[in-house]
């Protein structure tokens, strides 16, 4: 595992392959060379020599950023390296850049009319940029206001709980397999069907998370009611979640699933 501290005070953890590590070393050499400009680094960073990128459909020598690439921490290490060169090129005082970031997370949440947790999620998703000062995140008010403009700004109001689509859940752990569910309220008709397995019904819900684990792997699914859907079952060995639902989010990375599980609030 490698770590990179960005100029804005964030820590990026990433796992470079030997090929990626060699590529990053080439970019670092350009960063360290005062005769090279950001334009030189961009030419390399967005070429097909970058192992992170997909082929660009209009020019075989160039690389394409996709959603999967954006999700790669190492891509943002490259972004920070370009930023450092840009600072050199423009002769910018870094303190002047940091001075743009004046809003706390609480102030940002109030300004956008959303929860603080949504602001943190926006920062984690890199849709909201922040600068870390003395261990606290600060945001740029201009950037925050532009976040409101797009249709992908604050989340819509939480869906109303539905009692038309009760969930039947069988959860617990056995032989290294486990399934757990975050749901609102209490299970109805709860019964213990094995030593470490219980079953019951979630009668009224708008949003639940299902976490499955086995042998070091883990996944998380976020479900919302879908009364028009056929009844379906999410199965994991002996465990299951059955009902009329749609899967609105799926996280296959164990570490990310764990973090998302901690943050999730059922409704």
């Amino acid at each position: 595992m490698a770590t990179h501290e960005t100029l804005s005070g964030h820590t990026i953890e990433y796992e470079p392959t030997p090929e990626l590590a060699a590529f990053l070393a080439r970019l670092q050499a350009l960063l360290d060379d005062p005769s090279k400009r950001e334009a030189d680094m961009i030419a390399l960073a967005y070429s097909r020599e970058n192992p992170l990128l997909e082929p660009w459909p209009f020019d075989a020598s160039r690389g394409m950023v996709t959603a999967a690439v954006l999700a790669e921490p190492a891509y943002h290490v490259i972004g920070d390296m370009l930023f450092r060169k840009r600072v050199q090129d423009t002769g910018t005082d870094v303190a002047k850049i940091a001075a743009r970031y004046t809003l706390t997370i609480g102030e940002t949440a109030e300004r956008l009319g959303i929860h603080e947790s949504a602001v943190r999620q926006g920062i984690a998703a890199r849709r909201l940029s922040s600068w870390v000062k003395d261990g606290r995140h600060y945001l740029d008010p201009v950037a925050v206001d532009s976040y409101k403009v797009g249709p992908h700004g604050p989340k819509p109001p939480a869906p109303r709980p539905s009692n038309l689509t009760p969930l039947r859940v069988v959860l617990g752990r056995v032989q290294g397999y486990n399934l757990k569910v975050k749901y609102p309220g209490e299970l109805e008709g709860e019964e213990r069907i094995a030593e470490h397995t219980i079953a019951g019904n979630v009668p009224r819900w708008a949003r639940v998370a299902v976490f499955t684990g086995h042998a070091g792997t883990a996944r998380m699914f976020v479900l919302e009611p879908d009364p028009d859907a056929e009844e379906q079952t999410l199965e994991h060995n002996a465990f299951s979640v059955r009902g009329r639902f749609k899967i609105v989010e799926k996280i296959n990375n164990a570490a990310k699933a764990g973090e998302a599980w901690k943050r999730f609030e059922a409704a």
Partner: protein
Amino acid sequence: MFEVQVFIPVADNNGVAFGDDDYAALEAEIMSRFGGLSLNPGTAVGSWVDNGKRYDDRHRIYSVVVRSLTQGHLIGEVVEIAKRRFRQEAIFFRYLGQAEIL
């Protein structure tokens, strides 16, 4: 499918560089609407005059994969977001041999 190039400044009108997170946020907005993007090699240098004062600036040139003309309005959304985020009165972009300033 065709390519649209959007010119995004590297610094504001006071010469203060934009941070990596500014571009990351723009890229996230682009990616939520389109399937792929790239950065063109190099940067574009341009000049403009406002109230008798000349401004010189450099731009990154983002290329965006647009699958159909029916996605044109999404380019407009990205341009509006970019104008606010990068503190610009207008954004230059070009496509299919044409150029526009919005």
